[in-house]
């Protein structure tokens, strides 16, 4: 049987506002436990939430970047459930009137074609605290402690559409999540650091026979925080459901957990056990009316989006699209490139140097572009030196490494190592003569018409110059000497 796979994402992203969603406490992931708390975010009796305007701005910015409709009227709702990390016994979230609805995010689909993934809604809610267990799991622990630093941190929830352009494969799911993360980083609303839990996903999967219009029951896998886990869980779940349906069985709607160690999903609770969250409008917060000029201002000041960045690099600098895609994957790299492009004429060479050489060095030392010890001006100087044949490509790489390791300029490395190419004809001729004298057998072969040993001779001269001569020039010289 052939199946259509339908995948849905509920992605939670922590916004990088200075303060929390409903109180003035700072947001800082590295602070000591329970040092960034107050009556509001610990749910003290009588404390009341007051909405952080910046978080609304970020939400609207995200909504606009995802081509959503921004609702004029929206409100917060309480999601009621008990859990030790939830200080008030309810989470302030959004239910029937989210800030943004009905958008799309363009990805490159499995067949290489563009595909606009449907976005159902983008809403704002508060994060819960963090449980720290005395043992590996909640169940096995003698005691657990709660850190409320994270409590009330603004959380963006982005939900994909099930009906309008849903995700149809693990490949698309991955492309979607990458593009979403890239977009949110571009618009600077979140760092989306998955290791720090700043981006987490609930993923749901259902299968239906190809061509069928009805939806199959779906299983939901909760709280995943790495691409690897999401990919594995999806593959496992698709295979599991396929196996059951092909075996004549039935899929039940349920929530499952992904066991990363065993690479499989396990049932957590069935539809019947699904909690009733008793959503209702939060009476502590009034309905929010977003004035037109508030939304317009956000629209006007919208940072460049990834697709626009690619178009700009292709259009303005004449780069191949593949290069542009690589350079724009991280906004800061695109920024680095643009900064260099102010000083460098040969943009294609610049792009190659960043993609091949700078990326290699960054990767080797596990640095991000923001931590790159070579500033754009210095990098430009190096690329220009190569372009002007002041140094060879190979030397350039050595120089870059020195610059990278010691944080010095290209010029000073070149001077210090005496890397300036030998341009003086007399010196070169003297060296060529020496090499010819030392390799009489080889030169004889060349005189007989063989071209092969040419490279060997050039290599020998290069050795004497410690790589500082231009090989093309040397070839010309040797030929003149041997063949007249």
């Amino acid at each position, binding site marked *: 049987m052939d199946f259509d796979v339908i995948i849905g994402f509920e992605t939670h992203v922590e916004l990088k506002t200075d303060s929390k969603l409903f109180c003035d406490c700072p947001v800082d992931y590295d602070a000591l436990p329970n040092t960034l708390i107050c009556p509001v975010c610990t749910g003290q*009796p009588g404390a009341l939430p007051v909405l952080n305007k910046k978080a609304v701005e970020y939400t609207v910015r995200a909504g606009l970047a995802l081509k959503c409709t921004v609702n004029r009227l929206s409100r917060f709702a309480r999601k009621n459930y008990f859990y030790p990390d939830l200080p008030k016994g*309810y989470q302030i979230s959004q239910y029937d009137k989210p800030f943004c609805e009905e958008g799309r995010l363009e990805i490159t689909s499995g067949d290489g074609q563009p595909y606009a993934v449907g976005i159902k809604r983008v809403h704002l809610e508060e994060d819960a605290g963090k449980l720290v267990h005395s043992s590996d799991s909640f169940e096995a622990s003698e005691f657990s402690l709660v850190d409320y630093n994270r409590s009330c941190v603004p959380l963006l929830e982005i939900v994909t559409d099930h009906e309008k352009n849903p995700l149809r494969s693990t490949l698309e799911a991955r492309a979607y999540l990458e593009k979403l993360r890239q977009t949110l980083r571009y618009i600077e609303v979140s760092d989306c650091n998955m290791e720090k839990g700043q981006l987490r996903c609930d993923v749901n999967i259902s299968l239906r026979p190809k061509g069928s219009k009805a939806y199959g029951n779906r299983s939901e896998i909760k709280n995943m925080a790495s691409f690897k886990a999401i990919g594995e869980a999806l593959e496992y779940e698709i295979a599991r459901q396929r196996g059951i349906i092909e075996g004549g069985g039935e899929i039940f709607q349920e929530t499952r957990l992904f066991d990363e160690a065993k690479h499989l999903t396990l049932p957590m609770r069935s539809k019947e056990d699904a909690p*009733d969250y*008793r959503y209702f409008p939060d009476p502590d917060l009034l309905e929010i009316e977003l004035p037109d000029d508030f939304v317009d201002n956000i629209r006007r000041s919208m940072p460049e989006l990834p697709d626009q960045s690619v178009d700009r690099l292709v259009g303005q600098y004449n780069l191949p699209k593949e290069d542009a895609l690589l350079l724009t994957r991280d906004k800061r790299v695109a920024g680095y490139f643009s900064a260099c492009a102010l000083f460098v004429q040969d943009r294609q060479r610049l792009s190659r140097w960043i993609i091949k050489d700078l990326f290699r060095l960054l990767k080797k030392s596990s640095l991000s572009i923001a931590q790159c010890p070579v500033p754009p001006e210095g990098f430009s100087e190096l690329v220009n030196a190569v372009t002007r044949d002041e140094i060879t490509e190979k030397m350039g790489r050595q120089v870059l490494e020195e610059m990278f390791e010691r944080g010095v300029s290209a010029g000073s490395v070149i001077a210090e190592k005496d890397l300036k190419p030998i341009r003086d004809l007399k010196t070169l001729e003297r060296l060529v003569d020496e090499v010819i004298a030392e390799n009489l057998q080889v030169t004889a072969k060349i005189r007989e018409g063989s071209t092969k040993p040419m490279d060997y001779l050039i290599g020998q001269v290069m050795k004497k110059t410690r790589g500082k001569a231009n090989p093309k020039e040397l070839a010309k010289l040797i030929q003149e000497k041997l063949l007249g």
Partner: protein
Amino acid sequence: MELCDRTASELARLLQKREVSSREITESVFRRMDEREEKINAYITRTRELALKLADQADRRYRHNESLSPLDGIPVAFKDILCTKGIRTTCGSLMLRDYIPPYDATAVEKVLKAGAVLVGKTNMDEFAMGSSTENSAFGPTRNPLDPERVAGGSSGGSAAAVAAGEAIVALGSDTGGSIRLPAAFCGIAGIKPTYGRISRYGLVSYASSLDQVGVLGKSVEDCALMLGIVSGHDKKDATSAHTKTPDFLRSLNKGLKGLRIGLPKEYFVEGLDPGIKERIMAAVSLLEDNGVHIVEISLPHTPYAVATYYLIATAEASSNLARYDGVKFGFRTRENVTDSIMMYELTRSRGLGKEVKRRIMLGTYVLSAGYYDAYYLKAQQVRALIKADFDKAFEEVDCMVTPVSPCLPFRIGEKITEPLQMYLVDIYTASLNLSGLPGMSINCGTIKGLPAGMQIIGKAFDEETVLRVAYGYEKSIYR
């Protein structure tokens, strides 16, 4: 007359003239407590040491002509639902028996900044759920006028304290009538201002869209004085209004002449104690003698007010009280538990009282999937109709006069086993919480020694007219 039996306004004048000291007044209040608290039980926590210290500070300010406000040096009590930094705040519940807030409620902060002397935290129905102050983990408060009877609730401790001279003025809270009813039962004055007039920050939530801080005093003037001090926008409460606080004291003397006062006919029907009706009508005649025009009006959705109130209040309460789970603060069961669910269940079963649990269960049901539309949503729709009734009626009148309660103070234990009977006590007061309008309760005479209360209802943010009518009536009575 003892100092503790005088009004805040009188005492303020005496303090200003340095004829008495705050210490003398405060000592008089504590002497009264020593005499009567055993019987009345108006307080959960008394703060004698702190009070004397605050009184001495106030006296020093008076000596240096640096008094902070007319309330400087006046003994006040706070309902134990208002958070006081460093002083336990119990909400009348075992759950919060040992809870010490890390912060002051905004209303508390304003009163203390005005120089008032905090004498204690008053008794109340647990989490403000009740109409008699019998639902307290610290025992019932008794009516100072007749200790066999209830003081009304839920701010019964505040009302009894003021009535008995155990405080000069007090803060309370009103979700369905919780200031106006005990004020009426104890024969004093109390006002629930418009929703949003006073910050709710630090007022422990029962039903957020209905809760409002208010004041209780022996006279209308005292209420006006205190109201002026606690009102005003607070950026810590998103529902607090951006309205300027008028000079309430100045509005008192504007007289009654020419005012149009409505009598909603639905408030004078069967179920109302005939004696109370008689007293109200007598008061109405007196107002008429003073130049007021009386207009019969209609608030047709009145019969639905109590049901609507209990649906919305319990729904919000079920969520607001979820934080009392034994995890972070307050009571936690000492029994052996095998998991967190069991810890929640035992903690909440033991830590919360019967009426509170009843309302949490009702509210949980009201919000449940499949019932939400039929109950909560419907109740919100009726709430809008009740509000529209008032809007329409207020096109014709400046304020309204009604009874506060359908009955006189009842005996302790009389209604405690009959929750529905108890709920009906709020029949004339709950509509104002649903519509957010200001309402004041003042005494309009006694029946066999028991006080009858008259409610004056005003337009939104027009406490001035409410106070003006109340003051005009009070003056004409004493003339």
